[in-house]
């Protein structure tokens, strides 16, 4: 594949990202760090155990940006458990590339998803505790994730 062709899909998504913004009053915020040094913050708005809005910000490469854009768009309206169950084939489908000819960049597309999935897990955990501490329920859950390719 030529350089232009390989990058075309990513560049298009990179230059037209969806949901690259902050959500005011999020239900959960999670920060992820890739081993190369890139960072991402994922914001989720959750109502009745479903994601009503998802967004991201940070400093990352075109591949991470493309992945974050597609993933945040896809999860809107989904339940937390369905988001946690998103696997690699699904991610490849969303991005339109499995990176089989550019495997060094797998981490780039995985880490936005793992950060988002970790946000869902942390939120679930946190909500469980909050049921006993109702006065804390308005405080968003802030957490941090390292890229360990968890469960995907």
């Amino acid at each position, binding site marked *: 594949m*030529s*350089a*232009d062709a*390989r*990058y075309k899909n990513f*560049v298009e998504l*990179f*230059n037209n990202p969806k949901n690259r913004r902050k959500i005011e009053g999020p239900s959960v915020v999670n920060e992820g760090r890739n081993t*190369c*040094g*890139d960072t991402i913050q994922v914001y989720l708005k959750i109502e009745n155990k479903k994601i009503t809005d998802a967004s991201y910000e940070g*400093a*990352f*490469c*075109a*591949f991470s940006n493309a992945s974050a854009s597609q993933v945040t768009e896809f999860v809107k309206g989904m339940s937390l458990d369905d988001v946690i169950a998103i696997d690699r084939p699904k991610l490849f489908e969303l991005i339109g590339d499995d990176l089989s000819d*550019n495997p*060094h*960049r797998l981490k*780039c597309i995985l880490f936005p998803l793992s950060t988002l999935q970790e946000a869902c897990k942390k939120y679930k955990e946190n909500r469980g505790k909050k049921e006993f501490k109702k006065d804390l329920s308005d405080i968003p859950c802030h957490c941090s994730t390292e890229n360990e390719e968890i469960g995907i």
Partner: protein
Amino acid sequence: MALSTEEIRKDFPILERRINGHPLIYLDSGATSQKPNQVIDAVADYYREYNANVHRGVYALSAEATEHYEEARKKIAKFINAEPEEIIFTKNASEAINMVMYTYGEQNISAGDSITTSIMEHHSNFIPWQVLAKKKNAALSIMDVTPEGEIPKAEYSKISKAKLTSIVHASNVLGTINPVKEMGRIAHENEGVILVDGSQSAPHFKVDVKEMDCDFFAFTGHKMLGPTGVGVLYGKKEILEKMPPFLYGGEMVVDAKTDACKWNELPYKFEAGTPNIAGVIGLGRAVEYLNNLGRDNVRTHELELLEYAEKKLNGIEGLEFYGPKSSKKRTGVITFNIKGLSSIDLSNFLDEFGIAIRSGYHCAQPVHEKLGILPSARASFYVYNTREEIDILKEKIEEVKKVMS
């Protein structure tokens, strides 16, 4: 040019490779250098012709292997102006630094003591001291850098308070060459010791540990035309003699009784187990190769390329260089970012054109964070690089920029 790159390149078979249909342009010698035929042959000759363990057998092959191994030690000692018994072979510079931490550090650092390093260190010369300081309840004092990437003199007061200072000779990110001799003088005036991490200096310019008067000097073979898996710790004889061994086992002991042991003499006390014999012999040959080129010529060649590259790349819109402005204060690395273009996208894309550069933190996250720099792109030069390669680098960066915007 100070060196005949045309002739030199004939010695490096890998430079004939094509990557993604393009001739390889290797600009990542800061990560590891390529190897000349002379080194590859030296390693292969050991395995083909005189493979045997060293310092053990009383037969011809073992004697031959031992002779080559010890001959390499002598060459490497001379290369940095040390004595052969002050040269300890390790697997890399990280292990050399860790050896000092686990032996000298464990023995001499106590609660309330101070260890000084700098913010521009490679993780290999930062994390060991952070861990030791925590373990011993000692203070870790970190010398700061200016926005240009130099340590201000005011920071040297941290050396005067330290029992141990460990500092990089030349930064792998900024290229900054630190005045280690002056730093060592301050350490010694205050009864401290100094370790110099020479991973990015020994390959590129003349190093003299006696003139520098450092207590320890660590470097690695694979960044200076040698094989991977072999590094060096130099230590002053009187200090090494007082240090406990690092690893225990064969070779490092002369008298092994059931209740106690007597350690071997220097440097074998610190070389437990069968060493990387082929690696050491290969490194000895690499040292000979660099000596034949002339180390001042190597330095001049790299400075020429550095100045040429800076001038050439300076015209790229949105490009920002990091490190000291004066090339005299730097080694042959240029680290940069281009606005709106991630360094990993850039280096991955350049690979399409056969160009290898590094991207990311280069194992030096603290200095990036300190200077507020995103993960960066780095091109590093060595004896086989040419101006033509830099011309192509510039041309292809422009092409990547067009596609990515």
